[in-house]
Structure formats: structure tokens, C-alpha cells
């Protein structure tokens, strides 16, 4: 059925049943995933899916509902669900349906050349990736995971205030996990690439990165417990920032769930610490022209040289604080109500190369991987204690691999203790946002080991 017609019918029926402003958010797309194990394509999956989210104002409150059966038979259930849900809302914060921004900056997230890549070439790529890993070193005992995937998605937002926005995007990703073995010593290494230019995926380069990561950890042991100068490698720092993005949400600030409450325009981090949210970043995988409420996105510095400049807002939180929305309303899928999240969010790079940073450290620990980020850190208190892998640094040089340690501290304290910021800005795997960091030198964190 024609989407526009379905939406018109939905709105007309909603109005009949006493709803005021209404909005539809539609997401649809397809995906392909290829997995190789021991030269065979041992996993192949494809999908075609869609869903429709509906929200509308009933007696002054916003009600939500969604369905994955996108046809006329769902209209009644959608309206009934939204009205029921609106009736139990007792928050006084007003949620708004937006009529549209004056100007939207164009963002192109769709690459036609990716859509044209032949499946046989994708299969060839992922098989090559596995083969390359074994070629590099005899100590590679297995390639645990070897994956290529891509997907296409389209979003439509339409509301009774006349807003109609459409967006399409495609993305490809590949990752590999290798297992290196030397007698009883087993180590894994991981590498990935993301983007929508298939030609930029180089199996050899990727294999080398994963293999190097695994081999470099062979022979690791623990280290004596104590406080050390720490280098948080780019990927580890990006993972940690990813876990703490919630502290910048105005929703959390207003609900007393963030320690950044009351800290606007205060110095909360080191002079070298600048945090940017750039929805228009070249190559950014969370680039977008409009947010989850249809508001035009904008570039912002969240922290500028250590000073907190803004929180992330949507229309509701902005109205409550008497400010303009920052265009950070998000909808991670048609199943979720409006939330808040960054777009392409990263720590601005500094002026020292990774090697230069290491060379400034007499005794310290380089952290290359953090584990258990979903449980070992507390976004409310900022406290973290995380299992980690890395290397011991001595006299400005990387000395030996380290395992079975935890690194502990408090994020709010840590960002004050950033002494150097590297030039090696790197982004993690995209989720609700695309998050990046260069390597950071931290004055001191606690290491627990032997």
C-alpha cells in the first residue's frame, strides 16, 4: 500500500478518535551478512524489514505505539495503543510535534556504488580476509569470526503540522577476530572497517591489524597493583566515552541523573579536552540533516578547552531549560520513544603523535582494550573499574604485554587529568551514535593486578 495514503488514513482516523497533533516515523530496509569459517561460507543471512512508529497528543499528553505489520489492519491498534499510553503519562514536561525547521543542510549517506557491488565480490572479499589472516603468521590458530555485512535503510517522518522528511542511507562493515596460540597461551585480536565505500575495504590491511593485535599480546602477564600514568589508546578511550554519553543528556541532567547538573560554563576538564558533536562530519556514520523530532541538526562543541558549553537537548528538554534544542532528539528505531543522543561525537585531536606520547612516560601502562563496559562502570557516579589489556611502558618505550589487570578511576576526575591528546583520532563501531577519540595520556589511574 502507498505509504502516503496509509499515513493520511491513520491521521484521519486518529483525529476522529480525539487525537490532536500526530506523527509517523517509518523505518525500513534490507541487510546482508556473510560469515566465513575455514574457507567456507558458513553463515549467510539476508533480511527485508520495516516498522512504523506512531505518536500523538491526546488530552495534552503524548502517546506512542508501533507495529511491524505496516498495513491498514494496524491503524486501529496503533491509535488505541497511543491513546491508552497517553492516558497514563503524568509527567508535566510537554512533548511537541514539530512543524519543521526553515533550512536543512543536505547530507548524503547513500552511495550508489555500494548498492551495485556484486554478491560474489563480497563473498570473495570475506574469504580473502580469512585467508590473509592465516598467511601472516603460523601462530594464528584460528579465525574465530570473519564477517562482511551491508545494509540499506530509509526513514520517513511525517506529521499533521505539515512536516514530511525522507532520508536514505547505506553502510557496509567488516570485522575479523583472530586467535593466536603459543603452547597454552591464547590471545585474540580484533579489527574492523566501516563505511559505504566497498573499494576502501582492504583484506590484507585488516588481517594485518588483527593479527598484530593478537600476536603482540602473547606472553602477557599481570603487573603489580598501584597507581600508574596511563595512556588510553584511541579505541579504548572512544569505548569509554561511548559508555558515558548519557551524562551530557539534558534529560538526565533535569532528572537528577547526571553529575553535570549545574556545571554549564564551568571548567570540568583539562584545557586539552574539547568534545565535538558534528552531524555533518565528512565520512561520519551518524551524519544526518534532521533529528528524531524533525529538527535540523547542528554542529556544536559540548566541551571547549575543558569548559562545558551545552547539554544535548530535544524539544522537550530545551523548552524546560528555556533554550533552543540542539537537534539531538533520537529514535534508535521505530520501537523507541524520543530519546537524546549525539551524532558524530568525538574528542578533538591534539598535537602529539602516539609515539611521542609514549616517549614522555617513564613508568606507566598503555591500555589497548577495555572489557565489560556495560557493567564495570557506573554512569551515575562516574566510577569505573574495568578489566583491561595493554602494555607496560618504561623509559619512554613499550616494554611488554600486560593482561589480567583492571584499571579503575572516576570519569569526571579523569577528564580533568588529561595531560596529552594524540593526533590519532579513531572512531568505534557505529551504534546509536558514531563515537571517536584520539589516544589520551592520563596523569594517574589505579591498576589492580598482582
Amino acid at each position, binding site marked *: 500500500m502507498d505509504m502516503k495514503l496509509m499515513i493520511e488514513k491513520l491521521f484521519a482516523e486518529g483525529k476522529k478518535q480525539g487525537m490532536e497533533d500526530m506523527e509517523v516515523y517509518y523505518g525500513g530496509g534490507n541487510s546482508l551478512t556473510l560469515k566465513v*569459517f575455514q574457507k*567456507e*561460507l*558458513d*553463515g*549467510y*543471512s*539476508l*533480511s*527485508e*524489514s*520495516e*516498522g512504523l512508529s506512531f505518536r500523538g497528543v491526546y488530552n495534552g499528553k503524548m*502517546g*506512542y*505505539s*508501533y*507495529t*511491524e*505489520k505496516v498495513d491498514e489492519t*494496524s491503524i486501529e*491498534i496503533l491509535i488505541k*495503543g497511543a491513546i491508552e*499510553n497517553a492516558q*497514563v*503519562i*503524568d*509527567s*508535566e514536561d510537554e512533548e511537541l510535534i514539530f512543524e519543521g525547521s526553515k533550512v536543512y543542510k543536505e547530507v548524503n549517506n547513500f552511495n550508489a556504488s555500494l548498492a551495485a557491488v556484486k554478491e560474489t565480490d563480497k563473498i570473495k572479499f570475506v574469504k580473502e580476509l580469512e585467508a590473509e589472516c592465516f598467511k601472516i603468521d603460523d601462530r594464528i590458530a584460528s579465525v*574465530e569470526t570473519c564477517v562482511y555485512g551491508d545494509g540499506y535503510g530509509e526513514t520517513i517522518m511525517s506529521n499533521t503540522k505539515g512536516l514530511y522528511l525522507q532520508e536514505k542511507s547505506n553502510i557496509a562493515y567488516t570485522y575479523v577476530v583472530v586467535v593466536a596460540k603459543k603452547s597454552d597461551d*591464547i*590471545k*585474540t585480536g580484533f579489527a574492523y572497517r566501516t563505511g559505504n565505500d566497498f573499494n576502501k575495504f582492504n583484506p590484507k590491511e585488516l588481517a594485518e591489524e588483527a593479527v598484530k593485535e593478537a600476536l603482540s599480546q602473547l606472553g602477557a602477564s*599481570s603487573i603489580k*597493583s598501584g597507581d600508574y600514568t596511563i595512556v588510553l589508546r584511541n579505541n579504548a578511550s572512544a569505548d569509554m566515552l561511548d559508555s558515558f554519553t548519557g551524562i551530557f543528556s539534558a534529560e538526565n541532567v533535569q*532528572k*537528577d*541523573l547526571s*553529575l553535570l547538573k549545574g556545571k554549564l560554563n564551568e571548567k570540568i576538564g583539562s584545557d586539552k579536552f574539547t568534545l565535538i558533536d558534528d552531524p555533518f562530519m565528512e565520512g561520519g556514520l551518524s551524519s544526518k540533516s534532521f533529528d528524531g523530532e524533525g529538527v535540523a541538526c547542528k554542529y556544536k562543541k559540548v566541551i571547549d578547552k575543558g569548559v562545558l558549553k551545552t547539554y544535548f537537548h530535544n524539544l522537550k528538554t530545551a523548552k524546560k531549560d528555556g533554550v533552543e534544542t540542539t537537534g539531538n532528539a533520537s529514535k534508535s528505531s521505530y*520501537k523507541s520513544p524520543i530519546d537524546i543522543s549525539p551524532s558524530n561525537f568525538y574528542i578533538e585531536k591534539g598535537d602529539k603523535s602516539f609515539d611521542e606520547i609514549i616517549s614522555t612516560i617513564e613508568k606507566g601502562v598503555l591500555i589497548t582494550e577495555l*572489557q*565489560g563496559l*556495560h*557493567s*564495570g562502570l*557506573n554512569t551515575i*557516579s562516574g*566510577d569505573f*573499574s*574495568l*578489566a583491561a589489556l595493554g602494555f607496560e611502558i618504561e623509559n619512554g618505550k613499550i616494554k611488554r604485554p600486560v593482561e*589480567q*589487570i*583492571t*584499571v*579503575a578511576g572516576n570519569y569526571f576526575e579523569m577528564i580533568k587529568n588529561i595531560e596529552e591528546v594524540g593526533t590519532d583520532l579513531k572512531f568505534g563501531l557505529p551504534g546509536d551514535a558514531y563515537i571517536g577519540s584520539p589516544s589520551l595520556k592520563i596523569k594517574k589511574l*589505579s591498576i*589492580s*593486578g*598482582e
Partner: protein
Amino acid sequence: MLNKQLIVDTLTAALSTGGDFAEIYVEDRTNTGIVMIGGKVESTMSGRDYGVGIRIFKGFNSIYAYTNKSDRDTLISTAKKAAAAIEGTSGNLSINLIKSDVKNINMIQIDPDTIEKTKKVQLMRQAYNTAFNYDEIITQVTVNYTDYDQNIMVANSEGLWKEDKRVRSRMGISAIASKNGEMQSGFFGPGASKGYEFFENLDIDYYAKEASRIAVTMVNAKYSPSGRMPVIIDNGFGGVIFHEACGHGLEATSVAKGLSVYSDKIGQKVASNLVTAIDDGTISNEWGSINIDDEGTSSQRNVLIENGILKGYMIDKLNARRMKMDITGSSRRQSYRYAPTSRMTNTFIDNGKSTPEEIISNTEKGLYAKYMGGGSVNPSTGEFNFAVMEGYIIENGKIKEPVRGGTLIGKGMDVLNKIDMVGNNLLHGQGMCGSVSGSIPTNVGQPMIRVSEITVGGREGEV
């Protein structure tokens, strides 16, 4: 949920290029979620998930495709597209579907859909009020309510055809305590494979008070010590140690390809003699229980480790081929968007003989982990970690001052061998487990146990 002829035709199309097994999975699920922050309902969401997954095997290889539509044209064309990934010709397979009944071990008394949302909100308000009024330093309380009704159908080219219904209910209570510019949180999240009767019989005040008590205790606590020391882990959610240190490593997903540290170790000693561990999907109405798994196999009680000896794995159909072992009713998935694979259900260390009092009084020095948070593991290396949500120092056989922010790390078999006391107070706790086939409800469980030495990651020196 689909008629017999359409199922047969879809499976036939799926096998048209030489696949040797095909399966169709239909899911129709309604969800309700309500979030209350600061005593006010902030958001509610309800909706319907609907989709179909088609899976084809050829030898050790598998193909999976899913779609939201279940009309004849879409199903046949999806099956054909999936089949196109196999190069071959159709064998002479005839499919003889026989619908069989599913034994229901999770009896539902009150369908959550028949209860008005305002009633559900009342329960949340009760949780909020109790938690918020627990102490004046409690500054925020968030209550999450969820229920769902998942109806599934699974049929395959071997003739299996079953339908099942899974209803689950859960409430999460999170309390924040603030003092001197610091904040700490406490959480409790009871859940079950039950309908609304779960909430009617739930001691909401107890869980609300516990969440707040944890937050208040932790905001007053000093930082956890660091280094290797004896650790006592209490019953219930403490069982997350076995889930991470061993459970994931016994899933065929990693065992079949020889990637797990537990591969090829059946009959060998992998844990202390005191450890007997079980994965049991058949416990009535438990959070992780299933009548049938997502391949249609009846759930069962699988002994994983008996007196320290490795007895079995959790095995799904595809990995059973590679392993040449029997399936164990362990194949699970979050939704039709995932191909199923071997996962845990209700996994626990069985009761031992020590009383909790004996375990504590016999420990001179160490850490007592009363409540655990979540954790993770790398099954290839066996390295695991998990967070201590509420910890205490133990000195001279007595529980002393509280400590916060500790994490326990180790390598799988090493820590299982160091379990030197096992209590007699087995209890289960509820969690969500994320892995290759998505996020699924699982129980973890254990009686109180003691590990003679494990690395504790904190911010202070040794005990």
C-alpha cells in the same frame, strides 16, 4: 499461525537448491513498556513485533533470511532468495508435517493484556514511593515495567510443527543516593515467566527497599581494595560468575569450532570437586525457562559439570552436526531477526554443604560480594570480568565496612578450580544475556560460594 500448505511450500522452496534441512519460524509478539522517573510516568510504549525467519542448512553451513511479511508471495520469494545462496539441485525430499502439542511448564494465570495500564502504573508508584522514602539521601528513583506475550511457530523439513506462547513480566527498580556531590545507584530487577499474577504476588516493597539500601550503603562506602584475595560471592545473581567464567564457554557456538577453552574436555576435571553446575530450562515459571527452544525441541535439564568433571555442553541443531553430539533443547534467539543458536536458560551452581555462616567465619581476610552486577567473557581466552554492586571487607571471619566500585577478573577454569567452599542456599537471579543470537532472558544462580583467590580491581591497596 500459517496454514499447513504454505509452510510445506515455503520449506520446499527453501530446499530447491540442495539444502538438506529447512526451518520456518514465525513470531507475533506484543510488548508493553512503561518508564516512571521521579514518581511520574515519563514514557510508555506498546507495540507489535511480527516477522518470519527461514533457515536452511547444507552440511555445516547455514543460511538465514527474515521478513516482516507472511503472505504467500513474500514467503516463497524469501525462501528462494535464501536458497539461491546454495549452488545445487533439489533432492527428492517429501515433507510430512505433523503438528504436535507442547507441554506447558509455564502456566499463565492472568494475561497482562487484560490488565489496565493504570493498574500497572499503581504498582510502579508503590515501588517508587517505598524506594524514595527509604532514606532522605535518595534523590531519584526510576521504575521500569515490562511485559510481553510472544507467540511463536516453528516447523521444519523433518516434519516438526509446533506452536508456543511465552509470557514474561519484569519490574526494574533503580535508586540513586546523593551525598557531598557524589551519586551512587542501587538496582533490583525481579522477573518471571508469568503473567500479571507475578506482580500481584511480588513483595514490591522489599525489592524497592533493597535497591535504595544498596544505593545508600554504596554512597557511604569507601573504594574497593585491589589485588588478589579470597572472595565470597553471595547467592542469587552472584551466579553471574559461573555464567561468564564457564557458561558461555560451554555453548556449542564456541565449542563446535574448537574455539572454547572447554572444547574436547568432556570427562575431564575443569572445576573444583565441590562444583556441580546445571542448565535447566524446565523449572516452572522461571525467567529463563522455555517449553520448547526456538528450534522446537523440548527444553531439558542439562548437567554441565558434576563434582568438577565436565559432563556436557549446550547444543543446537547446526552445531550438533559439527560436534556429532545430541541437541540439548538450548537453541534460542531474541526474535525472528536472529538465527537461533545454543544459549543458556536457567544456569546455576548446585547446592553444597556449607552454611553461609561457616563460609564467612572461616574466612580470615578478603572481600564479600553481596550483590553482583553484570559481566562479560572472551570465550576464546576464557578471560572474564564482572562487577561487584555491593561489597564488604571481611576481617577475622566477620563482615566489616562496605566498599564500592570493585570488579572481579580471571580466567575461566582457573577460578572454577579455586572454588573452595559451596553453600547450601541456592537462589536464582534474573538477567538479560547478550550474544550472537541477540538478547534473551536468562537466570543465573548459585548458593554462596568462596573463591580462594581472585583478582579484585578497585582503587585502594590490599586488604
